[in-house]
């Protein structure tokens, strides 16, 4: 059970990463590699502030702001200095590696016995059950701490999902969604496409850094290497979410992304349980994303062949 709760919690935390990438990859159509750096940025900033005794919520807010700044820089490199999308992201990501080391002062900061965002929930829970370290849910014994983290992360993820879907339905959000699909059209409608790109990347990387902040608090450490491959994980989650729920409306898309991230974490937990070598995880994910990108094309050709055959049969 703790495996399932762990996968759910991890999924909820990383769903913020996926939501950020939904904005950059899917809505504004920007292949943004800054993600790998900004998730670590969020983790390292939160780690430093929490260790110094700041409120974990304030630390998470600082992480969001720092991530936004990183995304904004990527956006400006692309729009103002006309550097290719991918290269802009790579430049900022590479710079962030050094910046993260500078922020932390070393490559790893442990976060043991510190206040995290879930401490408050844990206290309330403990009061409710009278100080027991385990809670019985439908016959399962769940550690109170794990449950507290799970509840806190659910609340944060749902809160952000609601805010995000409301924002995307506003006049500004509608223009943002249009800007990714048809830049020519939005310019003709008086929208500064470049501003939209910079804003979207700032918002996206802010969410990614927030995810990194929560990840560090949940895992109990921030590590300079923790961002490697995060972009591919986020992409895999988005793809699963789209396959699961589709994207016929904003609400459904966002729900799908969160569910997709959770399912992806569950699949990983199961695969690891079955004996998948953790070192192979990123390769397997990369292969999965490749398959998910290519398979629809194959199916289309297959179905064309099929209907093509039908046409001949009729004639």
């Amino acid at each position, binding site marked *: 059970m703790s495996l399932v709760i762990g996968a759910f919690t991890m999924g909820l935390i990383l769903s913020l990463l996926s939501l950020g990438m939904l904005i950059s990859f899917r809505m504004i159509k920007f292949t943004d590699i800054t993600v790998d750096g900004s998730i670590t940025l969020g983790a390292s900033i939160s780690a430093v502030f929490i260790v110094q005794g700041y409120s974990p919520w304030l630390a998470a807010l600082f992480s969001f702001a720092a991530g936004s700044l990183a995304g904004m820089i990527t956006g400006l490199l692309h729009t103002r200095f006309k550097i290719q999308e991918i290269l802009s992201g790579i430049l900022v990501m590479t710079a962030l590696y050094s910046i993260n080391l500078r922020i932390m002062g070393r490559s790893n900061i442990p976060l043991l016995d510190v206040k995290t965002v879930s401490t408050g929930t844990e206290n309330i829970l403990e009061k409710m059950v009278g100080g027991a370290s385990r809670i019985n849910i439908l016959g399962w014994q769940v550690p109170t701490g794990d449950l507290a983290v799970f509840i806190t992360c659910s609340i944060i993820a749902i809160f952000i999902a609601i805010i995000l879907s409301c924002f995307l339905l506003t006049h500004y959000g509608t*223009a943002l969604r249009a800007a990714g699909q*048809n830049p020519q059209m939005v310019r003709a409608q008086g929208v500064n496409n470049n501003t939209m790109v910079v804003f979207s990347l700032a918002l996206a990387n802010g969410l990614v850094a927030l995810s990194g902040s929560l990840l560090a608090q949940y895992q109990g450490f921030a590590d300079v290497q923790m961002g490697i491959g995060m972009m591919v994980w986020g992409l895999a989650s988005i793809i699963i979410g789209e396959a699961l729920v589709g994207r016929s409306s904003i609400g459904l898309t966002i729900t799908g992304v969160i569910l997709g991230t959770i399912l992806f974490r569950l699949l990983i937990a199961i695969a690891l349980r079955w004996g998948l070598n953790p070192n192979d995880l990123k390769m397997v994910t990369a292969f999965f994303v490749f398959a998910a990108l290519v398979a629809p094309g194959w199916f289309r050709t297959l179905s064309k062949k099929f209907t093509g055959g039908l046409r001949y049969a009729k004639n």
Partner: protein
Amino acid sequence: MLKIESLSKTFHANTANEVRALQNVNLILENGSFTAIIGTNGSGKSTLLNAVAGTFEPDTGSIHLENHDITHWPEYKRASLIGRVFQNPFAGTVAEMTIMENIVIAMKRGQRRSLHIAVTKTFRGEVADRVRTLKMGLEDRLDNPIGTLSGGQRQALTLLMAAWTRPKILLLDEHTAALDPKSAAKVAELTKIIIEQEKLTALMVTHSMQQAVDLPDRIIMMHRGNIVEDYHHEQKQRVRVPDLMSTFDRVQKRELFDESVAGMLEEQYI
């Protein structure tokens, strides 16, 4: 009023592909006038339209719209004064978004885009009423993605969206050229109706001589980056398609004559 003064633009200057797309063009469009630009391929008619729309900066000259000098305004800023319909029916709308959302984006042209929910019930009624005037039955499909509509329907909606905020000038860039004949006729008819109803100033590039004769009240013919003919007022009333064709021939022959004769004279006398 649109005032274009000695506007020039050379693309790929000082290379083998140098194109002098506009050469010292002067043009004044009165308020409420509907002008068509015709001309051969590469005559500069689309370039002139794009210069007004702001897709590039001219080398020399100025463009004034109403009281604004818009010569150096970026494209998105000019959009507050300008409505545009493109040749490609897919260019003017976002396929994945609904009719309603597309129109809401157009309604806010030139205004600050707020953090209020975009598609609300009050808007819905207003939008349905105006979409009904297209007589295409689209008012019942406001929540369908625009990608599910035909090219003609999309172009009609783009036209409606372009005219929505009553722009100071409406730019039509061969907006019926990519449509089937029936849809093209329908969109052309709508163009005339909307421009008359809203009393818009319009500038239309077209390949169709018939359209140039039927729709606008002024025809400008361009050739090699220059305005070579200007049918206005009574002249425009009298002009028919064969007249335009013969003018085309004359312009092209004059050019042939110019080049070959000048070459011959040069050889013989210099």
